[in-house]
C-alpha cells in the first residue's frame, strides 16, 4: 500500500525533520502514528498524501513511485486516499453537505447517485441538522466531524487522519473511531496520527488486539 525507503526530509539549510524513514503499510492494515508534538507526524502524513516530496529516498504508493507520477495520475491516486486534516480544511463558501460531497463531485459522480449517501453520512456523524450550514458557523467539533465525513464518504483505500479526534468529546471520539474500524474491516488501510492514548486504548478494547504503532522520535520512526 505505502512503502517508504530511506526517506529523508529537510527544510532550508540542514534542518532535518525526518531522517532515513523505512516502513511498509500493507493493504487493510490499521496503524497509529504517535510521537510528541513537533516530532514530524503531520509532515510524515503530508509525505504520504503527496503534498510534499522527500529530499531523499523513495516513496511508493499503490505500487507507484511518487516522483514518477504525473499531475493527472497524481490526482487520480489521491481519489483513492481519504485525508482528515488537523485544521479541517473545509471550504467556507460551500455548505457542510457540499463539503462532504466534494470528493464525489470531483470524481465526476452524479448528485442523484450520492445525494442520499452524503445525507446519511452527515446524520451518522451527528451533523444531520447542520448539513446546510456553512463551516464558519460550525463549532470546532462539528468541523472535525464534517472533515472526517468528507474523508471517508468515497470509501477510500487508504485513510490518513491527522489528530481526527482532537476537537471532539470522548463519546464522539469513540464513535468516530468505530467508523474508522468499520472502514478498516471493509478493506480500507487506516493511519491515525494522534497523541491521544485513550483513543489507542479504546481501539484495543474494541478490537481485542493492539494496532501497530509508528512512533516518531527525533526524526526516526520506530514500529512498536
Amino acid at each position, binding site marked *: 500500500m505505502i512503502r517508504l525507503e530511506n526517506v529523508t526530509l529537510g527544510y532550508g539549510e540542514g534542518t532535518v525533520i525526518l531522517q532515513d524513514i523505512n516502513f511498509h503499510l500493507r493493504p487493510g492494515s490499521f496503524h497509529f502514528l504517535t510521537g510528541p508534538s513537533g516530532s514530524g507526524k503531520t509532515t510524515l502524513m503530508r509525505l504520504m*498524501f503527496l503534498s510534499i516530496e522527500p529530499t531523499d529516498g523513495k516513496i511508493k504508493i499503490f505500487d507507484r513511485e511518487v516522483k514518477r507520477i504525473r499531475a493527472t495520475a497524481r490526482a487520480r491516486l489521491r481519489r483513492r486516499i481519504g485525508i482528515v486534516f488537523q485544521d479541517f480544511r473545509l471550504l467556507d463558501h460551500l455548505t457542510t453537505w457540499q463539503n462532504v460531497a466534494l470528493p464525489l463531485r470531483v470524481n465526476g459522480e452524479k448528485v442523484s447517485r450520492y445525494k442520499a449517501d452524503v445525507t446519511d453520512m452527515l446524520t451518522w456523524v451527528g451533523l444531520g441538522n447542520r448539513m446546510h450550514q456553512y463551516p464558519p458557523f460550525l463549532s470546532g467539533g462539528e468541523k472535525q466531524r464534517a472533515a472526517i465525513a468528507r474523508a471517508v464518504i468515497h470509501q477510500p483505500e487508504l485513510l490518513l487522519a491527522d489528530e481526527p479526534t482532537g476537537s471532539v468529546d470522548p463519546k464522539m471520539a469513540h464513535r468516530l473511531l468505530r467508523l474508522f474500524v468499520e472502514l478498516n474491516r471493509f478493506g480500507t488501510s487506516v493511519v491515525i496520527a494522534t497523541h491521544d492514548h485513550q483513543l489507542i486504548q479504546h481501539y484495543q478494547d474494541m478490537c481485542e488486539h493492539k494496532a501497530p504503532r509508528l512512533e516518531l522520535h527525533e526524526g526516526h520512526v520506530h514500529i512498536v
Partner: protein
Amino acid sequence: MQADSVAGKSLTLVISIMCFLACLTAGTVYLINKSASAWLRNIATEVTVQIEPAERMEDTDSLAKAVKEYVERESGIVSARVLSISESSSLLEPWLGVNSKLLATQLPRLIAVQLHPRISPDLRDLEARLGAHFPRVAIDDHRQWQDQIRTVTHSFALGGIAILFLVGAATTAIIISATYSAMASNHEIVEVLNFVGATDRFIAHEFEKHFLRLGVRAGVVGAASAMAVFSVMPLLVEFLGSGTLTNAELKRFIGNGMLDSYGYIVLLMIVIIITLLCVLTSRFGVFRILHNQL
C-alpha cells in the same frame, strides 16, 4: 473570486469598457463599410458626361441636349438627364455656399447617365465617339472616386482591426492578471481541491465558469452601451451643433448611424469573442499556474 466583491466588480467594469470599445469600433467599421458599399454600388451604374461651357449659355444648352440624345441611343444606357444650373449649384453648395449658383454657369454642364447594371457599354469607345461628334465633351466614370472610397474604406477597416487586436490583447492581459490574483487569493481552496483528487482540468473548469459569467455579463453591458451610442449618434451630432456640411459628410460616411440586423450580429460576435477570450485565457492561465506549482 466572488463576482460581487470589489475586485470582481472592478474587473467586470474594465471588461465591459473593453467590450464597449470593441463594439463601437466594429460597429463603426461596419457602418462605414456598408455606406461605402452602397455608394460604390450606386456610382458603379452611373457616369457623368461633362460639357465645357461655351461663350453663350444657349450654345451650351443645345450642345447638352444633343449629347444627351446621342447617349440615349447607345445600348446599355438606361437613361440620361441634363442637370439644371440649380441642380449643379446645389451640388456645390455644401462647399461654396449659396453663391455657388453664380459660379455654376462657369462650370461644366453635367449629364447624369444611368447604366444598365449588367450590359455596360464600352465607355472609352463612347468617349472617343462623343469627342469626334461634339466639342468639349468628356466622360467621368467615377473610377478615381471608387478607388479613393475603396482606399479609405480599407484604411478604416484595417484601423478598426488594429484597434480590435489591441482591445483583445488588453483584455487578455487583464484576464491573465485576474486569474493569477484569483488563484493566489483562493490558494487554500485550490489546495483542498488538489487533496480530494481534483485534476487540473476540474480546477480550470471551476475558474472557467466564473470567467464565463463575468465575460457574458461584461459583454452584454458593453454591447448594450455601444448600441445605445449608435441609437443616439444622429441626435448627438445634431445636439453638438454640427452644420449642414458636417451632417451631410457624416451621413455619407456612416449612413444614418443606426445599425441594421447584420450590425447587431457583428456586436453579438464581439460579445461571444470577448467571452471566449475570458474563458480560454483563464483556462490556460490556471493550467500554467498549476503546472508551475508542481
